[in-house]
């Protein structure tokens, strides 16, 4: 490290100062300058993130609104899209493939729709996470904010999207004989835990996606495999009857299946606690905490490198 030299030799008309001969690092230390763009400590990072909470919320709402702003029906698509989705799955799995083994029709339809919506929530959070940094490099290279604001904002957008889907879900439930009751209140903690889990996952994939944008191409296949393995359109224990028990166990303990089952349990009359694996709430909370804390720390570790494309 050397004292600043001016290429070409035209020095600024600086009088000899006591700073002469100091290295750049020493000079910076003397005047209390900090390395630009350095990663803050974890506590400071959380504090900065908290300071940006209005931006996180506004950004997610803006993204949500911008989605359908050119459509003639406008924001009606927020509800129409999940409804059409549910119809397609019903057509294929309910009518053509008859995957409703082990259920009455009154249970199967809400079972299927709940599964699709809850899984879509996780799925789209992961996909949005992969592109959270790599798809917003312009923003990252122009403005200062804790980068975790982006993946968090995107999962918040998905949560709001899911709330619209819940309207459809309520209508479907009531239509098939599951009327509002006290257990519907359980929806709130289930959604909260799943949101934590999704946000953690989104942060993990945001970091991986910023380094390897190819993940955006690969993830749809991984996620689809995950969906079929999680019992979105069939009951895992019924489908795997006769197979070794541990396969069903593993599939049932996976976070997507856990959150789906809890939501179905809360919502559907004929879907009782006998369908849930033991300690289901502890597992749901465990997955949420593991993903959220792990994902946050993992994301923060690379904070200063996100501008590099």
């Amino acid at each position, binding site marked *: 490290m050397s004292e600043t030299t*001016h*290429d070409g030799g035209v*020095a600024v008309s600086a009088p000899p100062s006591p700073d002469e001969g100091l290295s750049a*690092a020493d000079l910076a230390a003397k*005047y209390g300058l900090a390395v630009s763009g350095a990663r803050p400590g974890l506590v400071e990072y959380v504090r900065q993130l908290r300071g940006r909470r*209005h931006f996180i919320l506004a950004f997610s709402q803006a993204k949500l609104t911008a989605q359908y702003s050119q459509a003639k029906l406008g924001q009606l698509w927020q509800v129409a899209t999940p409804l059409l989705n549910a119809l397609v799955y019903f057509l294929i799995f309910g009518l053509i493939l008859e995957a409703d083994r082990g259920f009455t029709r009154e249970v199967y339809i809400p079972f299927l729709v709940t599964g699709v919506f809850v899984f879509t929530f996780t799925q789209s959070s992961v996909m949005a996470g992969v592109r959270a940094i790599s798809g917003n490099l312009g923003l990252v*290279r122009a403005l*200062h904010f804790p980068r975790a604001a982006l993946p968090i904002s995107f999962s918040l957008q998905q949560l709001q999207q899911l709330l619209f889907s819940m309207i459809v879900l309520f209508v479907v439930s009531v239509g098939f004989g599951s009327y509002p009751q006290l257990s519907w209140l359980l929806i709130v903690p289930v959604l909260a835990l799943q949101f934590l889990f999704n946000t953690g996952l989104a942060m993990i994939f945001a970091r991986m996606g910023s380094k390897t944008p190819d993940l955006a191409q690969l993830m749809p296949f991984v996620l689809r495999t995950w969906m079929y393995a999680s019992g979105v359109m069939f009951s895992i224990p019924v489908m795997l009857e006769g197979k070794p028990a541990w396969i069903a166990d593993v599939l049932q303990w996976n976070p997507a299946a856990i959150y789906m089952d809890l939501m179905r349990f809360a919502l559907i009359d004929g879907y009782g606690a006998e369908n849930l694996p033991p300690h289901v709430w502890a597992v749901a909370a465990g997955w949420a905490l593991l993903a959220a804390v792990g994902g946050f720390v993992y994301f923060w570790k690379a904070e200063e490198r996100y501008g590099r494309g």
Partner: protein
Amino acid sequence: MAEQITDTRIPTVIADELHIVYRVNGAKTGKGSATAALSRILKRGEERGVRKVHAVRGVSFIAYRGEAIGLIGSNGSGKSTLLRAIAGLLPAEQGHVYTDGQPSLLGVNAALMNDLTGERNVILGGLAMGMTREDIKARYQDIVEFSGINEKGDFITLPMRTYSSGMAARLRFSIAAAKDHDVLMIDEALATGDRKFQKRSEARIRELRKEAGTVFLVSHNNKSIRDTCDRVLWLERGELRLDGPTDEVLKEYEKFTGK
């Protein structure tokens, strides 16, 4: 602490042997087939398939409080990259940048969304720059008036994609210029729009300059550099070619560009 030292100038930005390298995926010359790409991925180690662009090569300088520094050089010489590195938005490949507080780039384009109304973009842009909701509410009327968007009817409640390019640029500048900065960096071509708006935005930049501790200005307009800056850094091919008082450097630069 710095105030105790009299007779010295207080540094606000120190760049020390700064190198910035961009990595571009999939732009490697030569075989571009899928199999070639696959073999590059499989042969790990030395980053294959990635082309490096060395945009800033070993730049060192010290900026002091109260200085207005112009950055000149031909297109692609690394001016904007250097600004972003000073702002801490681009990680350095080698070397360091030390700054006093958080330097900020003037500009919010990236945070705005064309599908939203001008109104919502003002709020979104303000929040993205780190303003509080109260700040934005207090300044909202000023921003809209400054942009002059509503001179031709109630355009602020229409989506930004319906604006003419000049109108959109005016709104973007108005949002960006609504916040005060400590170390302020202004990239070229900010004063867009018609003549009337250009004058207004130049005045606003002067105002911001007065409030800011140190100002960096990137511009291809030698006149505006001469008007605003007392020191100029001349970058060419990512290297600092000359650093000195505005007149001397500009004279050399004009000789170089053949003006």
